[in-house]
């Protein structure tokens, strides 16, 4: 009797602690979310919005014989699709031509899942924000606030049952929603087969070809960054060409674990022109800037940043870029 009482008392004492421990682990929920996105079979329809643009889309995802398949189909307006098989991505454009993004052959990058399971980026404050309901499903709401002005915040709705991301908003410092994605229907474990992910035949196939970095002078251009927003680091570097007759363009991918931006560097041929400036579409900003090469050369380079970071930060990153002549 006393033992039981003691146990009950102990349990009562521990319960708030357990609850607290669970509630203070948005990190494990984020890890579970990343895991669910990769490992579950599901299909559903969702809305994608930015500004006054609204797209309706369908997603199918399955793991078949150890391979991961994903297909996104644009349902209204023009038909555009994206099919992914593990790391191979194919874009099917409205004119039914296809672009193949060759998977990189180098060292495997550190996946979000691994990064996030180690630690959340310190530049964010993450907290659970009660319950919500999306696509008829119960969701846990999560708020990820940026602690400095160099990144956007997020609001996530994560499915209680499956841990899938049901709704996501990217928010700027002023609380303005830059982009929203929201499921309206979601089916877990639909019977999907490899045929559901078969690419249609296309008359024209473009391949964004992956090249070894040292195979072309463009791959040997080095950038010195005199400033980077805290927490961002280079995760990948590659060199790709769009078509065999074009010069390849080198890219450096940066991420802080949540947000990412990519720097593209290309040497300009004599006589070709390039424009500097800023453009924006939804949460994505594209900024380009002309840089002079190392001293006593007349080389000129165009550096373009594409990413989902605040425009001021993007401009500052570009202003901090210097070409190092490593040839």
């Amino acid at each position, binding site marked *: 009797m006393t033992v039981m009482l003691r146990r009950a008392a102990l349990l009562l004492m521990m319960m708030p602690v357990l609850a607290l421990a669970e509630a203070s682990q948005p990190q494990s929920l984020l890890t579970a979310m990343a895991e669910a996105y990769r490992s579950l079979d599901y299909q559903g329809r969702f809305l994608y919005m930015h500004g006054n643009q609204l797209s309706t889309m369908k997603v199918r995802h399955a793991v078949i014989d150890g391979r991961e398949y994903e297909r996104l189909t644009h349902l209204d307006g023009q038909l555009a699709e*994206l099919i992914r098989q593990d790391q191979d991505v194919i874009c099917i454009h409205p004119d039914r031509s296809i672009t193949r993004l060759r998977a990189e052959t180098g060292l495997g990058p550190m996946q979000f899942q691994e990064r996030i399971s180690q630690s959340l980026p310190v530049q964010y404050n993450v907290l659970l924000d009660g319950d919500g309901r999306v696509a008829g499903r119960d969701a846990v709401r999560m708020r990820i606030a940026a602690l400095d002005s160099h990144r956007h915040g997020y609001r996530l709705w994560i499915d209680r049952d499956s841990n899938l991301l049901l709704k996501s908003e990217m928010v700027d410092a002023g609380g303005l929603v830059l982009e929203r994605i929201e499921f309206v229907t979601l089916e877990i474990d639909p019977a999907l087969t490899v045929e559901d992910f078969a690419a249609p035949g296309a008359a024209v196939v473009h391949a964004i070809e992956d090249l070894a970095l040292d195979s072309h002078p463009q791959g040997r251009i080095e950038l010195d960054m005199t400033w980077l927003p805290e927490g961002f680091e280079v995760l990948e570097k590659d060199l790709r060409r769009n078509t065999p007759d074009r010069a390849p363009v080198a890219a450096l991918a940066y991420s802080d674990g949540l947000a990412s931006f990519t720097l593209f560097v290309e040497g300009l041929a004599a006589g070709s022109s390039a424009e500097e400036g800023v453009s924006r579409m939804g949460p994505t900003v594209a900024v380009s800037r002309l840089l002079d090469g190392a001293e006593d050369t007349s080389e000129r380079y165009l550096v373009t940043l594409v990413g989902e970071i605040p425009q001021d930060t993007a401009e500052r990153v570009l202003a901090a870029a210097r070409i190092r002549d490593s040839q």
Partner: protein
Amino acid sequence: MRAIEGDAMSTERELEILSGLLDGETSELETRRILRDLDDTGAASWQRWQLAADVARGQKVAPVPVDFNARLSAALAEQGPAKGSWLGGVARAAVAASVAAATVTVGWQYWGVQQGEGQATLAGVPTEQVQEVRARPMADAFLVGQGLRAPAARSQATADPRIDPMLMRHSEFAARHGGQGMVPYARLVSADARQQEK
């Protein structure tokens, strides 16, 4: 969100706000509010802002403040390439462009050597053809603003209709490294589908 009564009324009001925005007469708060309205209103408001785009293309479709185009042009002409606060210089042009371009279905510039042909028009003004221009993704979102002022020395409409490879590469990176699952892919597919919808 503000209640909208008469369509013509609200359009005129919107254009005044837009005009003020372009003249830099709005405070940061107001600007944020305008942009927030743009974001939060759904498909219904699209038409209202489509009017702005029509204006940008020089089509008379709505009661437009008489000096709207002139003020817009003047405001844009004033801007140098200077960088400043987020509403200054280039940023303001980007705001202007994003206001106008959000409704003009934005095409994407293929980067690399242009293989364009023929004469193109932007805002009703014939633009010159240039053989070699590299442009960043979404470059014409910016040039919507420039095109109002003068013939842009570039041939935007001859851009390859394909979606920008930089955007594809970035989206692919972002999907693998970012924390938003399929969101970068959704962003890409949406942009791809929208870009040929002219």
